[in-house]
């Protein structure tokens, strides 16, 4: 915000309160109410006015309070925000970032634990990214703000409490300043036997599973943190699966038509002769997100991930 006076933040309770997760803590005090805008409680209104601000030359960074509250804004995101660049033949660019705390695992009430990424990945014109570590979050949010395209920035909410080193005060002045390109996947743990494709909150779970499998000698798992869901970094995915010959996709979102479906299709197209086993998916069920007391049964955990690893290795 220091670097670019056109960056404005918008959202519910992001000012004095600093947002319900305190992500914008202190920013209104530093930058004033014109740049850190507490909005009325209307998500379509937030995104719709962000579009107008972007048309006037601003770079709005919008906070949707929780994943389950993004749907009132769905029309503005899908019908307006995503399409404007194409329908205007590139004359109108909307560099809007939509930050959404997403995913479960924090014992929340309903509509506070959802994983809506597929809706947005399905929509041409949007970029969809999600960090898995504090350091990645630090750089990726700056890359998202600098990006001339609309970005849906998914923040794994149960990882808000993770601690990690960040280069405090470092400012992204050109895309090359960040350690990793915006749209690139990252091999978070190299391995030889199985490729585990995951993103956001599941990266930590998959890394733990890989360590467990290594400890008991079951398998040497390679964990690929996708980071960008639109576009997918398919070359990195393919290179890994060609090495290991086996792939498991893990996400919290329902398995039906989730990113796992897309990745399984892409992998069988791109790595058909390298595959030793069918691509397996571990995800949420095709039911509404359950009550918090049983959410651990819904969410992929270490055991469900390792069960899938056993099954791909059995081939």
């Amino acid at each position: 915000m220091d670097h670019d006076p056109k960056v404005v933040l918008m959202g519910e309770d992001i000012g004095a309160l600093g947002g319900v997760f305190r992500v914008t803590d202190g920013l209104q005090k530093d930058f004033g109410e014109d740049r850190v805008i507490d909005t009325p409680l209307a998500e379509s209104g937030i995104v719709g006015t962000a579009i107008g601000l972007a048309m006037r030359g601003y770079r709005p960074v919008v906070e949707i309070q929780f994943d389950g509250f993004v749907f009132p804004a769905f029309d503005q995101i899908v019908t307006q925000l995503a399409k404007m660049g194409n329908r205007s033949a590139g004359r109108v660019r909307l560099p809007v970032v939509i930050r959404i705390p997403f995913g479960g695992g924090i014992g929340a009430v309903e509509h506070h634990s959802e994983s809506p990424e597929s809706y947005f990945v399905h929509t041409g014109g949007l970029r969809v990214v999600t960090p898995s570590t504090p350091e990645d979050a630090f750089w990726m949010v700056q890359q998202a703000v600098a990006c001339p395209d609309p970005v849906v920035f998914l923040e794994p909410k149960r990882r808000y409490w993770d601690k990690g080193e960040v280069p405090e005060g470092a400012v992204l002045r050109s895309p090359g300043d960040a350690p990793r390109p915006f749209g690139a996947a990252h091999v978070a743990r190299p391995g030889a036997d199985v490729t585990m494709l995951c993103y956001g909150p599941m990266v930590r779970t998959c890394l733990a599973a890989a360590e467990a499998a290594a400890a008991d000698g079951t398998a040497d798992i390679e964990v690929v943190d996708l980071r960008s869901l639109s576009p997918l970094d398919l070359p990195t995915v393919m290179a890994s699966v060609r090495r290991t010959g086996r792939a498991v996709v893990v996400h919290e979102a329902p398995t039906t038509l989730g990113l796992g479906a897309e990745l399984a299709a892409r992998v069988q197209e791109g790595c058909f002769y390298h595959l030793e086993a069918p691509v397996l998916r571990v995800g949420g069920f095709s039911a509404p997100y359950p009550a918090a007391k049983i959410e651990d049964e819904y969410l992929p955990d270490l055991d469900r991930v390792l069960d899938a690893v056993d099954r791909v290795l059995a081939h």
Partner: protein
Amino acid sequence: MPDTDVGPAGSPDRAAHVDREADTMIQMLTPEGERPEPTGAALEYAAYVEDVTDDDLRGMYRDMVIVRRFDAEATALQRQGELGLWASLLGQEAAQVGSGRALRPQDFAYPTYREHGVAWCRGVPPTALLGLYRGASLGGWDPAEHGFALYTIVIGSQTLHATGYAMGVQRDHAVGTGEPDRDAAVIAYLGDGATSQGDVSEALVFSAVYNAPVVFFCQNNQWAISEPNTRQTRVPLFKRSSGFGIPGVRVDGNDVLATLAVTRAATERARSGGGPTFVEAYTYRMGAHTTSDDPSRYRIAAEVEEWKLKDPIARVKAYLARSGAADEDFFAEVEAEAKQIATELRVTCRALPDPPPESMFDDVYAEPHAVLDAEREEYLAYRAGFADDTEEVRT
């Protein structure tokens, strides 16, 4: 107002109740083409058109005739298969030209899909408007160049964009400076049906609480496709905004002078920092909703006949003729010019090139998107395969 005033949903009583408010409507030019001394509410707006000369009125007449002729030509082009669809503005010329002429170059307008008259006032080439309806384009003009956003088809969405743009105007300190070339207003066009959309209510909330320099210009043309406005509202639409803290005014939308005055007042208020205004331009959609529609299924011919007597162009012509501000030569010249524009439009419409198929991949993203870029390459390779086949057949 008390509920006892109104009958059950859809009853004639309710329609009558809505219509009773017509006497609060700002009018400066009667359907007979008379320009009476302004009284009552109209008096408040008279100052905004004091400087309007006969030349200006002739100019507005010209705009309206050209726009009507252009609109008729577009309808004909649709019937001939040159356009996939057309949304006619027939009957709404005064509302659009009056409000369009109230705008300054630095102002910004957010249209629906029917604002051809406003587009004309903003200098958008008519052929560019046809591209969308021909299926040759999804947009077709540069919004920044004309201060005129792309047409919006999903009802009401643009009212939020207008409000956001107006919030940007505020942040640019282009409100209330008193500099005539700096202070800007934003105008959002919407219809009576759109007032039922949640986005419109949200736009009213946002613009009110931020005091944004935006004018909501609602053309109440009485019909949302087949639904009369008794299916949208229990109160006159201009009263809708007062609950949001936004003043509302109803103007005779078939009166170009009154529309100009009321829009000038509202945009001036916005530019000076006075905040949003809701204008209801009371008018009538003389034609179908679009060329795909058949209004004879839902409305009676007598209603259309009644509105013909309030024609927005006839009254200006009557005034110009009666006051001696224009003669037969002038009217003939305007007709000839409109005919010429329509002829040219026919030619330029047919000449609009089909976009190359691979252009569907263009400008989706400002920066490379690996997955889409790969799809484009695969598609081009697939197409190239057919080119080889064709050559083989030829040789």
